[in-house]
């Protein structure tokens, strides 16, 4: 039995009773332990005292804004955080993701999407479950990070250094959103953090090389206004 379901503790920080309710029911039905907090203050206290494995944080808390909470949390914890937000607040999402959140879900959301995020985030090295992503092979796309080799349907693909760096960042956080600013900063340094159009073209080129540039990319998914996500298609 892998670690990521049994006894994993999830802290839900949301001031809406009803949202907490269905989240609690659903998570419990999947075997998770659920902690609840109504305010940011409460949430931080529980995070400190109960060591949850995942924190689900609503951005619309009455007593603090998400960014502040995240920053405070990140000074002493690397716990994975999933944020709940509404559609319009793209910039806020990006800010909070850059401040250290790992992924997000937009309200209203279906429970499956949410559970997938939780599962995904539990696979991170920072959580109790670890995962080694040195190698990716789903039968079509093969990526060897150590030897820097990529092949698609058997044919070798040549990526430039920067292109590979982007792919590596995406693939080491499978199914997780990486913000544009994160990618830009990692690869081009802090001065280029605003050149999102450049990044867009760049990712397009990578997709092209991976032969994944149809209307619906299978591997690299765009999260509009936020960033990109690598979809893990390896069979479990």
């Amino acid at each position, binding site marked *: 039995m892998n670690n990521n379901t049994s006894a994993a503790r999830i802290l839900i920080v949301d001031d*809406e009773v009803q949202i907490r*309710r269905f*989240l609690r029911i659903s998570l419990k039905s*999947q075997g998770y332990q659920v902690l609840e907090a109504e305010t940011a203050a409460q949430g931080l206290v529980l995070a400190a005292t109960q060591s949850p494995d995942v924190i689900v944080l609503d951005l*619309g808390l*009455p007593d*603090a804004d998400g960014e502040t909470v995240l920053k405070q949390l990140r000074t002493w914890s690397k716990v994975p955080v999933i944020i709940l937000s509404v559609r319009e607040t793209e910039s806020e999402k990006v800010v909070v993701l850059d401040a250290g959140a790992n992924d997000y879900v937009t*309200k209203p959301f279906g*429970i499956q999407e949410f559970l997938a995020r939780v599962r995904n985030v539990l696979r991170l090295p920072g959580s109790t479950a670890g995962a080694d992503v040195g190698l990716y092979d789903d039968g079509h796309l093969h990526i060897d990070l150590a030897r820097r080799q990529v092949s698609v349907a058997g044919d070798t693909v040549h990526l430039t250094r920067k292109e590979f760096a982007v792919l590596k960042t995406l693939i080491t956080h499978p199914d997780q959103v990486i913000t544009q600013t994160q990618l830009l900063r990692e690869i081009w340094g802090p001065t280029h953090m605003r050149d999102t159009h450049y990044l867009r073209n760049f990712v397009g080129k990578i997709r092209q090389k991976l032969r994944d540039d149809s209307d619906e990319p299978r591997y690299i998914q765009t999260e509009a206004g936020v960033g990109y996500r690598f979809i893990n298609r390896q069979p479990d």
Partner: protein
Amino acid sequence: MDTTSDSRPVPQTLPSGIRRERQGDLKIFLGASPGVGKTYRMLETAREVHREGMDVIIGLIETHGRPETDALCEGLEQVLPLQIEYRGAHGWEMDLDAILNRSPGVVLVDDLAHRNVPGTRYTRRYQDIEELLEHGINVWTTLNIQYLESLNDMVARITGVRMHETVPDALLSAARDVVLIDLTPRELIERLHRGKVDVPEQLRVVFAGFFSLSSLAALRELALQTVAERIDRDVREVMQNQGVTGSWPVWTGVVVAIDGTGTSDEVVRVGWRLAERHHAHWSVVFVDPGDTGPERRVKVERAFALAERLGGETLILRGHDPVAELLSFAHEHNATTLVVGRSRRRSLAGMVGRTLTQRLLRQAGEFEITFVPSSAAHERHWHIGLLYLGPARYYAFALAVVMAAVVIAATIQPLLPLANLSLVFLTGVLLVAVRTAMRPALFAALVSAAAYNYFFTEPRYTFAIHHTDDLLTVAFFLIMGLIGGQLAGRLRNQVLALRGTNEQTQALLSLSRRLAAAVDVPTVYREATTAIAEYLHVPVVVLAPGESGQLTQAAASHKGQNLEDKTRSAAQWAFDHRQPSGFQTDTLSEIAWRFLPLAIEVECFGVIGVSRLGEGTVSSEQLAAIDALVSHMTLALARTTLATSLEEAKMAEETERLRSALLSSVSHDLRTPLASMIGAATSLRSLDHALSADDRCELLDSVISEGERLNRYIQNLLDMTRLGQGALKLERDWIGVDDIVNAALRRTRELLRGRQLVRHIEPNLPLLYVHPALIEQALVNVLENAAKFSPEGGEVRIAATAGDRELLITVSDEGPGIPTEQRVKVFDMFFTGGEGDRGMYGSGLGLAICSGMIGAHGGRIEALPGPNGHGTTIAIHLPRTEPPAHDNEDRG
């Protein structure tokens, strides 16, 4: 002409300098008459600059077949003229479009005043040239002086021929260079004889008249003068542009003094010419000693009207000494020149050096003084002037006083020595002086002296005087009487003058005060019309542009002022041109109204009209007073308009704020219940197998209650919209308090689960006469809040009592409470009391809607601290309504 001691470029002069840089330059070769050689010189100059490399082309030159001119045209590119057919004949005109296409550096176009053959773009060649200039092409052209519009009259007088092809003077002013081609008349006539001059059709008829020596000489002088004036202006402009004040004397001001005699008009004109020549500021003053008769006043007004037409300032100075007043005025206004009419011949006064002229010469050393001579005919006016003695009743009064003095003197004669009796008469004279005017007082002095002599000096009842000392007494009495009378009279005049000024100032002050307090435009109109009407005792009306843009009456001092069409058009003219119109102006002066524009800088609020009673003129002081009042009014209008704009801007800002708050509220408050619903529903569907029966029930409850919550929120939004639009129609009905409370509790049952509900509804409460659904909604919102903020297990108390005049319903919770300073604001729309996107109390709309609904019923709602000091109590007050009297039940 602006005169400032500051030599920085004055705005009136700069624009022409700037304009030139954008357009093409115009160079005019000006001549006194045809044949002086303008075209020839133009071509010569053109060839020179062409040799130096400038791009010069010929647009149109009329050589009239003369070989010398033809020869000059060689070597220069020519644009072929257009052939135009007109009435069967062929005409040649300049091809404007070809020149525009060619876009040369300079184009030569002969005869600025030429009238084009019909069929071309413009009727006049100067219009073609204007278009060339607009496209940045430099133009050289020729012009005869007689075609200048402003000189049309003069040329007609000189030559007997009136030119029809005139050119506006603006073109000459706008030209960068004007080259004068000069030829003496004799030489010109010689050339004529030699056939070297092309004479225009029009002039052939009056050849002799035009081409006579005297005519040509006069035209030459005109041309020279025009160019000389231009040179002056050019130089001045350059110097001003460079900020150089120049070595010429700076003429700052001319003061013209008039006295209301026949020469006043002429004096004004002389003053104007002087001021014009030196481009100085000029004013016309009249010194009013206080005893000016109506005839003199009329003459002064006329002279003032003339002065104003010519552009001068007019003022009335008050004082008994014209010289002193004039000099002090001139000093204050930094005048350099005085212009006065020559004083009338007063040999007596002249001998002691007391005429105006002599005194001015003595005292006005630092000014230049110009004396305007008066012809003999005007002398006669002097006599008429003196004859103004004053009303007859003054003299009758004087006589009566003297007679009374005689009687009193006779009565007390035994008690006083003879000489002292004169004091009684003196008293009489002073009395007359103080009560009437100076001349009657002098009359009284003379009569008193005569009476004193006749009745009291030896021999009595004769005009002879036997004793020398009596003679001296009489003589000295006479002198004292004259002096005293004059002094007293003068004093009286000054008092009267001051009173007049005082009235004016009072009117101004009172209006200022009233205007300062005005808060909106209609008030300003009302106050101003009332004040001005009171001051002048005439009807006053204000016209302002209405919604359609047309001028309509905005205020009137007397009801029922209907304006005729002509009057209306005068008002419209004043509004459009920002200038006064009506009587005593230059426009539509025959109507009985005077309209002044209410304008400040670029904005014109309307016009104010002052009616004229009868045929009298309004004095210039009154007009000046009106101007002052009107400028106050305009300022007040500007202020109130700004205040209104500010209000509107604030409203707009507030509306914007509400709108964005609404949007974010909708976004959040609609989404949240939906998120719960979708989350719960997807959980039910996907995780069905993993859920216990209880779990499923809970999730389903969630879907239902969140759906209801969504419904409530949408209902709130709709109610808010209706409240905002005033579309809330109250359909009142009689309903019991407990019914409403129960209904509200039913709807909020879910929400209140887990809280302790306590009810304290008094029995036998009177019925409410309200719109049940609205009050229920209000109560639901309040309960929702109470539930939201109540801690788990906390108490929610709902109570209702009745007082004399109102019913009170309260809902209390044990939540965190509302801070004192937020207790009123919490009922505002989208009030956010705390941080985060939603406030602590009131999600934005809930309490605001309560407030609106309760308010619509005439009640009020307030937030109070909860029982025991913590938590919150919301109190709803509703007015009691007595039910209609029932018929007695036991009616048969």
